[in-house]
């Protein structure tokens, strides 16, 4: 394509001897190819990393009162996020005078706690995952089964609360940990109970 065929090749005798030298007309394509691939790499990389990833998050209907659900929960934790990346939790319902405990956002804190409390669900989902690989289960079926396991009566239920000093990252971190530890039932609650406010005050003044 890039070579030009100069000269007819039909010349004979005297004419040919007059020409100094037959120059090669092949163009060096290397820089062109280099450039093409550079551009290609650039566009490929920018194209794939362009689209942002999203985390699905549902909020409860305002009419639903989160405190109503609590009474029938067997295995529940309430997490309260506060300022300066502090996180507190208590188990069970408020009516049983639970104790507020501080916990860290790190893997040996929150994740460990959630894994312990949600151990049954985690192991069942793991077993399901192995089964799904063996039997080549459809993705949608797998997801449906996971939801079924997560809504099992003894599965962990988490309420996420905050006193208005928390930052957005705290809440997302908590939800992310819940996703990692396969907790299917959780809800972000806006208002703190007066009793919870009191407990927070106490633990902050006297840890």
């Amino acid at each position, binding site marked *: 394509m890039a070579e030009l065929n100069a000269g007819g090749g039909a010349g004979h005798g005297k004419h040919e001897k007059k020409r100094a030298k037959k120059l090669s007309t092949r163009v060096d394509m290397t820089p062109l*190819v280099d450039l093409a691939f550079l551009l290609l790499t650039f566009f490929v990389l920018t194209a794939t990393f362009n689209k942002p990833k999203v985390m699905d998050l549902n909020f409860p209907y305002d009419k639903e009162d989160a405190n109503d659900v609590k009474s029938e929960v067997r295995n529940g934790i309430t997490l309260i996020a506060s300022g300066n990346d502090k996180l507190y939790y208590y188990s069970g319902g408020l009516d049983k005078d639970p104790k507020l405990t501080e916990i860290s956002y790190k893997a040996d804190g929150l994740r460990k706690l959630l894994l312990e409390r949600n151990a049954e669900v985690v192991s069942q989902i793991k077993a399901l995952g192995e089964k799904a690989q063996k039997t080549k289960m459809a993705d949608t079926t797998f997801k449906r089964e996971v939801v079924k396991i997560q809504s099992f009566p003894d599965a962990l239920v988490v309420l996420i609360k905050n006193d208005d000093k928390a930052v957005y*990252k705290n809440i*997302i971190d908590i939800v992310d940990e819940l996703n990692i530890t396969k907790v299917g039932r959780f809800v972000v609650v806006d208002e703190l109970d007066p009793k919870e406010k009191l407990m927070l005050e106490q633990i902050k003044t006297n840890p």
Partner: protein
Amino acid sequence: MVDLAFLLVTFFMLTASFRQVEPVVIEAPSSIAEDLLPENVVQVTIDKDGRAFFGMSGFEVRKNTLRQIAEEFSLKLDEDHYQKFAGMNMFGVDTRQLPQYLMLSESERENLGSKGIPYDSTNNQLKTWIDLGRREAAKEYQRLKEEAKERNRPFKDDGLRYAIKADGKAPYDKVKAVIQIFKDLNIYRFNMITNVEEEPKI
């Protein structure tokens, strides 16, 4: 091979959508979520000081939304304003300043800065934007659906989603206030935009 390389270059160049200059820098928190942001969204962005920005997808939808807004706030706009607005993916100024803001160049906008769209209870412009925006998006959705039906073409059903992109350092009560606006409009499901992080083994 060279032909192929150039073919691919051309393909990626044409399909690539260039990232527009955003009025704020947002450092979103990271999560293990891997779902992609849907095509058809209304997006509210909240920066670390709690300022709110509004954006939505679709050239035509943006124009139509601005038309409704102009009526609501009795703004005087011409075709030039509409064109400028349609090409803008996100903005964060008081609606009354919008006509002036639209006529500025990109660098002038950057110098001016953004104060964010007001969303307190006395002056809830953000709510008006979201409400009118979703109405226009729904109209466009209906229009596309009918058009597809008329021409007997398959219709790709992606309904409107609501995305929230907030800075990790944004106070949660600001985010809560924005979510409350959505809740007041009977919207409870969100796509939170996060950075990707590897899922740890458990």
